[in-house]
C-alpha cells in the first residue's frame, strides 16, 4: 500500500511539475519578446524594418546601427551620437550614487545607534522623500539651483539626485542597522573608538549586502531618470535618457528605427550590467534589511 501510494504521489508530482514549467516558460518568452524585438531590429538594415519584417530575424546582419547610435546619430542639432551623453550620465550617476549612499549610511547609523529625541519623527519626515512626486519639486528646485549657481550643470543634477536619493538610502540603512547589535557599538565606545571610527571600522565593513541594494536602487533610478535631466540640464550637458529622447523624437529626416533600437539598448546597458554583477546580493540584502525594522 505504502509503495503504491508513494508511486502515484511521484507521478502526480511529475505532471504538475511539467505543467508548471510549461507555464513558466510561456511567461518567460512573453516577457522576453520586447527584448527580442529590440535586439533583432538593432542589427538589421532599415529597409528590412520598413519592409514589414519587424519580427523576423535579419537577412543581412549589420552592426552599423550600433556604431551610428553611438558615434554619429543626429542628437538635437549636432551629429555626435549618444557617446558624449553617455559620459554625461556617468559623471552624474557615479557621484550622486556615492554621495547619497554614504549619507544614507551615516543617517542610518545616527538614527539607530545615536538615538535622540524625536528621531523617529525625523526619520518619518525623511521618508516623505520616497513618496513626493518629482513634478512637485521641479519649480522650487529650479529656483534653488539658480540661486546656488548650479542651474544647467551636472553638479546641479547630482545635487537633485542626492537630495531625492537620501530618503531611500536612509530607509535602507536605518532598517539594516536596526538589526545590528548595539552591544558592538558600546564595546567600540569602551575601546575608545569615536563616532566616525565606529562607523568606518565597525559598521561599514558589515554593511556589504545593504550597500549593494542601495547602490543598485540608486543607480537604476538616477540613470533612468528623464524628468530632472530634461528640466535641469541643457543641450550638451544632458544625460543619456534625454539624448535618447532627442534622437528618437527628432522631427526631421528619416526615422531610423534600427538606430533607435540600438540607442535604447545602449541606454539600458549599464543598469542591466549592475543587476547582473550585483543582483545576487540584491535579493540577499533586501531580505537582510527586512528581518527587523
Amino acid at each position, binding site marked *: 500500500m505504502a509503495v503504491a501510494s508513494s508511486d502515484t504521489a511521484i507521478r502526480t508530482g511529475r505532471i504538475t511539475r511539467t505543467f508548471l514549467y510549461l507555464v513558466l516558460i510561456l511567461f518567460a518568452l512573453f516577457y522576453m519578446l520586447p527584448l527580442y524585438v529590440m535586439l533583432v531590429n538593432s542589427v538589421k538594415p532599415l529597409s528590412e524594418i520598413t519592409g514589414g519584417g519587424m519580427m523576423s530575424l535579419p537577412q543581412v546582419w549589420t552592426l552599423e546601427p550600433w556604431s551610428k547610435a553611438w558615434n554619429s546619430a543626429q542628437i538635437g542639432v549636432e551629429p555626435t551620437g549618444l557617446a558624449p551623453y553617455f559620459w554625461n550620465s556617468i559623471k552624474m550617476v557615479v557621484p550622486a550614487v556615492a554621495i547619497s549612499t554614504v549619507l544614507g549610511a551615516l543617517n542610518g547609523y545616527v538614527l539607530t545607534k545615536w538615538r535622540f529625541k524625536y528621531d523617529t519623527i525625523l526619520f518619518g519626515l525623511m521618508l516623505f522623500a520616497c513618496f513626493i512626486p518629482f513634478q512637485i519639486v521641479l519649480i522650487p528646485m529650479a529656483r534653488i539651483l539658480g540661486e546656488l549657481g548650479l542651474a544647467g550643470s551636472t553638479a546641479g543634477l547630482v545635487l537633485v539626485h542626492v537630495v531625492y536619493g537620501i530618503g531611500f538610502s536612509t530607509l535602507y540603512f536605518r532598517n539594516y542597522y536596526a538589526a545590528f547589535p548595539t552591544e558592538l557599538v558600546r564595546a567600540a565606545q569602551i*575601546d575608545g573608538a569615536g563616532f566616525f571610527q565606529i562607523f568606518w571600522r565597525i559598521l561599514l565593513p558589515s554593511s556589504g549586502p545593504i550597500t549593494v541594494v542601495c547602490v543598485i536602487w540608486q543607480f537604476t533610478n538616477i540613470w533612468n531618470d528623464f524628468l530632472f535631466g530634461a528640466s535641469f540640464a541643457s543641450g550638451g550637458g544632458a544625460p543619456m535618457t534625454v539624448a535618447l529622447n532627442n534622437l528618437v523624437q527628432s522631427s526631421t529626416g528619416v526615422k531610423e528605427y534600427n538606430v533607435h533600437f540600438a540607442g535604447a539598448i545602449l541606454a539600458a546597458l549599464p543598469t542591466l550590467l549592475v543587476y547582473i554583477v550585483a543582483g545576487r546580493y540584491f535579493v540577499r540584502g533586501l531580505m537582510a534589511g527586512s528581518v527587523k525594522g
Partner: protein
Amino acid sequence: MGFLDIDNATKSYGAVEVLHKVDIAVEEGEFLVLVGPSGCGKSTLLNMIAGLEEITSGEIRIKDNVMNGVHPSKRNIAMVFQSYALYPNMSVGQNITFGLEMHGTPKEDRDAALKDVSKLLQIEQLLDRKPGQLSGGQRQRVAMGRALVRNPDVFLFDEPLSNLDAKLRVDMRTEIKKLHQKLGTTIVYVTHDQIEALTLSTRIAVMNGGYVQQLGTPKEIYDNPANLFVATFMGSPSMNLMDVKVRANGNAIFAETTNDAGDAISLTFANPSEELKAHDGNTITLGIRPEAITDPDGADRGSSHVETVENSVMVTEPAGSDTFVTTTLGGTECIARLRADADVQPGQRVPFAINMEKAVAFDPKTEARIN
C-alpha cells in the same frame, strides 16, 4: 573609601526611578556579583559604572576619581558583554588589540600584549580567525582577552555565561574564578544565576526592584538572608518557608506547627534572640533550607539543635548526588535534601532531622529577618 565607590547612585528615566540610592564600596581585588531577577536594575547599574548610561544623581568613583560624565574609554574599565560583541569583520587578533589601537598604543606594544593575553587564555592558534568561525567557548575567551589586554582598573561582566550550554558554563565559571585568583583584578559581574553568584563572588549584592536587598559575602547571604526575597531568590531548591507560632517557655523559644497528620509539633530555636522572644504568641515565617531537613543519619553532627519529626514522603526526586524529598510541614510543602542512598519511598512515614541552628525567622508583615 573603596577602590570603586558607588555612592548614592540613582537612575531615573523621566519620572520613573529605576535605581534607588545604591551604595556599594568595592575594595581592590574584590569580585562583586550583582544578582537579581530581570528588571531589577543590575545591568543598568553596570552600564552606569561603564559610562554607557548617565547617572541621574549620586556619584561613581574609581580610585577616588569621580566618573560622572567621563567617557567610557577614559574610565580605564573593560567590559565583557553577554553577546561577546566581537567585531565580526575583524580577526581575533584585531578584535583584541582594537582598544589599544584606538588608544594610540604603538604596534610593537600591541603585539606583545596580544601575545601575553593569547597565551594566558590559550587562544594563540585562533588569532587569525574571524569570530564567525569560533565556538561559543572560544568567543567567550576572545571577549575576555579583549578586556584583559587593556589592563583596566575594573572589569565589568554582563551575564557573560548565559549564552553557553550548561556544561561549558560550569567550565568557564571555574576558568573565570581561576583568572581572578591569578590576576587579582577588581571585577563587577552581573548575573541572574544565583549559583554563579555564590560560586564566583567574594561579595554579592542581591538586587530587586531597583534596591539593593542585601550586600554581603556568599555565606552571609546564604545563611542569614536579610529578608524573604533574598531567602527565596538565593539557593536551589529555594528555602522552605512555613508559618509557625512562636511560644516562649522560660528561656527556650519554640516554633509551633503541625506535621502532615495534623499533630502538633514544636521545634526549639537554637539561639533565640531578644527580638524573637518579643514575638511570643505571634505568627512568623520560619525559613529552613532543604539541606537542613534530612534523614537522621545524614544530619549535621556538629549541630546543637536537631529536631526529629515523623512525616510522610510525598515525592522523591533522586538527583544523583542527593535525593530530594517533598513532604508537608505546617500545611505547606517542604523540600528535604537527603543522602543519595537514603532508602525512602513515596507514601512511607520516615523520621526527618531538622537542623534548627540553620533556621531563620522572618516577620511576615515587613518580610525582614528577625535577628
